[in-house]
Every structure is written in structure tokens, then in C-alpha cells.
């Protein structure tokens, strides 16, 4: 049973990390990018590529994976977001980010292959370590570091305060001289870097697999919706809750109920508390 909890926490941490990446992008753009899970996928795939194919040491591979994630985040903003937001208030970004996500997945499938490939051990540890195995604790540690780092960024840095200003009212922020377009681009790059880090940290758990992106996009969104859109604490709680629910459901009832449980959790929370567990209720004055 302890393994169930630890593996649930580990996969939940990856969902939470995806949720955090969603939040960073959403804060400055009000866009929920379908490419979010694919950023994590790229972190895992490129991490494995740098270490196994190019023979680079793990720290260099980590930096490489983070840079690839940041570059893809920025690319998402430039290709799929910037022009769409400039031309339309409708939710066309859903289509543009879906198109980009599909193209990236296909491209990685063609280049990397469609079978999962191994992700190397990052620390010297025997495989019989059980619940202490690094594959569980690395993603958990990564998401804790991400959450603390974001908290510091938002509260203690000027750029963090700029992000918050754009998040609260982009028009007012622009009126005060904030370059909202540049801020948005930076937020996508930061989300990409953190997504790359999460994908790298969870590589041993997920393998380096081209089709991981869409799964994480879905479960990361559920984690965020359960926790509350815009809330980092919500993303953490939602992700961990989803991971634990899924593994417990599989353990107790079998895997055929895993997705039902995930979507069921989302529906229950949305019915009882539509803004999510930690989301702020928006009231429109009339």
C-alpha cells in the first residue's frame, strides 16, 4: 500500500508540475495551451537524447532539456498565441495550440520513434530500493522546487510583480507602461523551462515517450481545474489528489476505472465548487 501512495504522489507531482506550467502561461495570456503536456514530453525525450545518444553528463542534459522546453514555450507564444490574440477575442488559441501540439508530437514520433525509450538513472542507486527509488522522489522534489521558486519569483522579484499586474488587469498594466506582449512571451519561456525540468525529473517514471504530451495536457488541466485556475497551491493539491485517486482506483478496482475516476473527480469538484478548490470566485457586477 505504501508503494501505491508513493507512486501516486510521484505521478501526481508530474500532473501538478503540468498544472503549474498552465498557470504561468494563463496568468499573462488567459490561454490554456494544449502544448503544455508536450513541453514535459520534450523534457523527457531530449533529456534521454542528450544523455544516451550524445553521451552528455546529467547536469548538462538537464540544462539542455530546460533550454529546449523554454525554446518550445517561446515558440508556442510566437506561433500559436501572439497573432491569434492580436486578431481575435474568440478562443481560437485552442485550435492553434492543438495544431502546434499535434505537429510537435508527430515530429518527435518520426525523429525519436514511436516506442518508449529508456531514460537513464540520474543517481547511483540499486533498482531494489522500493519506495525510496529516485524515480518516485525526483518528480516530487522537482515540483516542490518549482512551487517554491515560483512563490519567490512572484513575491520577491520585480518581474514577478509585473506578471501579477498583467494577470490582474492587462489593459491597466499596459497603460502603466508594462510591455504586456514581452511579459507574455517571457511567461511562456518560463513555463517551458519548468515543464522541461518536470519532464526530465520524471523521465525514469514515464520513459522517453513521444505520446506522453496529450496525456499530461489532459491530466494537468484536470489537476488545475480541480485545484482552481490561477492558483499554484490549487495546481499542487489538484495534481497530487488526481495522482493518488488514479493509483488508488487502479489498485482497488482495476485500471479500467482510472480515467473514469479522474474525470469523475473533475465533475464532482466543478459541480460543488465550480471555481476549483483554491480558485477565486469571479463576480460580474451588474
Amino acid at each position: 500500500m505504501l508503494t501505491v501512495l508513493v507512486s501516486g504522489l510521484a505521478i501526481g507531482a508530474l500532473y501538478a508540475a503540468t498544472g503549474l506550467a498552465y498557470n504561468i502561461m494563463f496568468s499573462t495570456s488567459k490561454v490554456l495551451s494544449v502544448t503544455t503536456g508536450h513541453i514535459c514530453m520534450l523534457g523527457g525525450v531530449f533529456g534521454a537524447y542528450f544523455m544516451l545518444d550524445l553521451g552528455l553528463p546529467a547536469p548538462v542534459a538537464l540544462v539542455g532539456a530546460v533550454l529546449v522546453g523554454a525554446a518550445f514555450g517561446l515558440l508556442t507564444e510566437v506561433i500559436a498565441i501572439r497573432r491569434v490574440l492580436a486578431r481575435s477575442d474568440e478562443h481560437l488559441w485552442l485550435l492553434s495550440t492543438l495544431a502546434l501540439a499535434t505537429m510537435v508530437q508527430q515530429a518527435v514520433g518520426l525523429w525519436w520513434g514511436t516506442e518508449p525509450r529508456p531514460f537513464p538513472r540520474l543517481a547511483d542507486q540499486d533498482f531494489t530500493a522500493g519506495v525510496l527509488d529516485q524515480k518516485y522522489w525526483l518528480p516530487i522534489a522537482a515540483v516542490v522546487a518549482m512551487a517554491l521558486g515560483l512563490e519567490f519569483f512572484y513575491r520577491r522579484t520585480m518581474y514577478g510583480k509585473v506578471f501579477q499586474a498583467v494577470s490582474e488587469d492587462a489593459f491597466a498594466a499596459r497603460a502603466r507602461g508594462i510591455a504586456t506582449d514581452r511579459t507574455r512571451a517571457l511567461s511562456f519561456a518560463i513555463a517551458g523551462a519548468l515543464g522541461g525540468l518536470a519532464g526530465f525529473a520524471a523521465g525514469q517514471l514515464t520513459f522517453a515517450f513521444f505520446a506522453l504530451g496529450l496525456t499530461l495536457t489532459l491530466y494537468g488541466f484536470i489537476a488545475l481545474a480541480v485545484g482552481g485556475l490561477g492558483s499554484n497551491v490549487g495546481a499542487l493539491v489538484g495534481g497530487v489528489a488526481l495522482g493518488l485517486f488514479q493509483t488508488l482506483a487502479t489498485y482497488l478496482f482495476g485500471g479500467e476505472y482510472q480515467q473514469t475516476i479522474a474525470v469523475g473527480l473533475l465533475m464532482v469538484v466543478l459541480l460543488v465548487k465550480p471555481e476549483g478548490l483554491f480558485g477565486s470566485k469571479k463576480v460580474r457586477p451588474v
Partner: protein
Amino acid sequence: MTTDRIPARMHFGPATMSAAGLALAVGLFAGTAGADTTPVKIGWLSSLTGPLSSAAVAENQGVKFAVDEINKAGGIDGRKIELITRDTAGDPTKAVNFAQQLVLSEKVDFVIGPVNSGESLATVPILARAGVPNIIIGTVDELTDPQKYPRAFRAIATNEQWIGSANDYAIKTLKRSKVAIIGDTTGYGTSSAKKAEALLADAGIKPVYSVLIDANKTDLTDEMTKARAAGADVVMPWSAATGLLARVLNARGNMQWDVPVVGHPAIMGLPIKDLLNKPEYWEQTYAAGYSSTTYGADGKLPAPTTALMDKMRPEFGGTINFTFWWVTLGYDTVKIIEHAVKTAGSTDKAAVQKALENTQNLKGTYADYSWGPKQRNGFPDSGIVINKANTFKDGSFEAAPH
């Protein structure tokens, strides 16, 4: 068609000339009508990209090689083969669209595939409605039915043959009776796990543990712990998902559980080897394989396999680092079509159906095939062999210990 001319120096009377002219004209017309030189059009629905593309890419090499070989030899009864390949990317929707295009626009004479059973379940009824002969290479049992799909003939082994052979090996050879079945939550995994349970029930065995798992589940320690707690003495995974199968073996190895694993052929694939935590985690792992790609006691493969391997080896750059039965299957699908057209004397669909229905013991590389008026599964039970997973060499395997 004759092109000979009558020599000028020969002299004939008017009546003889008229008769000869008539005979020549009739002969020419008969020759033109009899020697059909239109190409034999084969549609090939192959998931060359997307999930499970490894098998499709290898099968495609066999298909293309057979087409080239036949065309270089002059075609089928003088008719060249025109191969029309469509990449379904493993997507049933695309497979359906391409099947319709092949039938309605390209007007193909035959369709090979699709590669994956999930795609085939969607395309087989469409091809059956169009009356186009379909060489099936999916294993799911529901894909063939002489009443519903009279022109669908299966070349590959059925899922039931795979599972039945694996069950026999676990029960009769390994003498195990406490079976843990692991399936995945895809349609294929679910139906295979059910079939495995049903076949075990026929042998009087009820699994001590049975579970369906999401194919992308990241850790299987819990399921394997439960299987061990339930007293399982053999684990039988029925899934084509490489990641899931590797995780079964990794969980078993990490737990240091000394239990044999007998299951789906994908557990012998080379991608599994790369995903194992340690190479020894592949020990005591067996799967349904084929006599055509199994080394005999003398260390040799059957002669037809060796012959094809030798012919194709230059195309692979000398080494064969994928499962070779995929290639033999692809190669045989075209040879089956060649046999059908030659026997039928044309590509007339009803005649082709009759030719295949009357085919007995057609020698192939992957297997020897027999179909009948009420039998659409051509692969013989004797063609299945249980292989030892960690013995991959040149795309083939050693037989499991008996």
C-alpha cells in the same frame, strides 16, 4: 499477344488467304482479349507512422520486396503489380477514409491490412461491402467471418492461437496452474485478457489474479505485489504496449520475484530490452512466436526464411535488428495475392474468393496457408512456437525450453 508477320515470299490462294486473314484477325482479337495487361492494383493500408509503426515498417519492407520481385519476373501472368500504399498512422478514422478511397477512387483489386486490429475492425466491413478481397494481418478473432466478410482471408495467426499456445506452455510444459493475467485497458488488451481467461477456464483453471491496467501506467509494483500475494506461479501479460510489458518485467525484477512470464509476442521485441532496468530481467520470459523464425536444434532457421533473409539482407545493411516475422508476413501477403490471381486466372473478385477458399497448404515463408469455404483463418496451429524472449538474433529466436 503475337506480333509475328507472315513472310512475303510465301504464296497462298485467295481462299486460303481469306481463311488465314480471318484466323489471324480472330487470333489477334482473342490474343488481345485474353492477355490482360492491366496492372493488378493492391491497396496497402499500413501504419508507417504513429503508434505500433515498428511492425508496419518491417511488413512494408516485405510487401515492397515481394512486389518488386514479382514485377521483375514479369508480373502475375504478365500483369504488373501496382502497389498503392496509404499511411494510416494507426488511426482507425484515417484507415476508414483510405479504405474508401482505395475502393472507390483507386478501384483496387485487393487490400492488404490495415496493420492494427483496431483499424481492421473499422475497415473490414467497408471492404466487405465493396466486395474487395482483403488479406487480413490483424489478430483479433472477430476480423474474419465467412458469412459477414466472405472475401476477408487472414494470413497472420489469430489471437486465440497466440493465447492458446502460451496457456499450453504455461500449464503443460512449465506445470503452472496459478495464473496472474495482466491486460491493458485498450480494446485489444481487454478482449485478449478475457479470451485468456476463457481459454484457461476450458482447461479447468481460474486465474488467481486478473487485472486491466492503463497502457501508460508508470509503475506496476502494486499489481505485481498483488499477483504474488495471490499466490501466482506464472504471470501472463496480454498487451502490445511496449512500456507496459517492460514495466511488468522491471517490477518483477525489482521485487526479485522468481516467476516466469509467458505472454504476448511484443514482450520479445528489441525495444523491451532497452527499457529493462537490468538485462537479466528478461530471463524466464517466454512468448508466442513462429516456427518460421525459430532456430532449430541445429541452430538453423527453416530454409524459406533463410532464403528470404539472404535475398533481403543487403536492404537491411547486413544486420537484422527487428523481428523478422513481420517481414515474412508482409512478403507472404503479396505472394498469396499472386497465388489467388494465378489460380483464378483473373482478378475477378468472385473467382479470387473461390481460389482462396480452395487453397490448401500454400507454401509460404511465414507459414503454409490453408483456407476453406467456411475457414478464413489460414495460419496453421503448427506454425506457432513458444520462444525464449532474450535470445533475439537476426530477427529470430530460440525455442523455449521443453
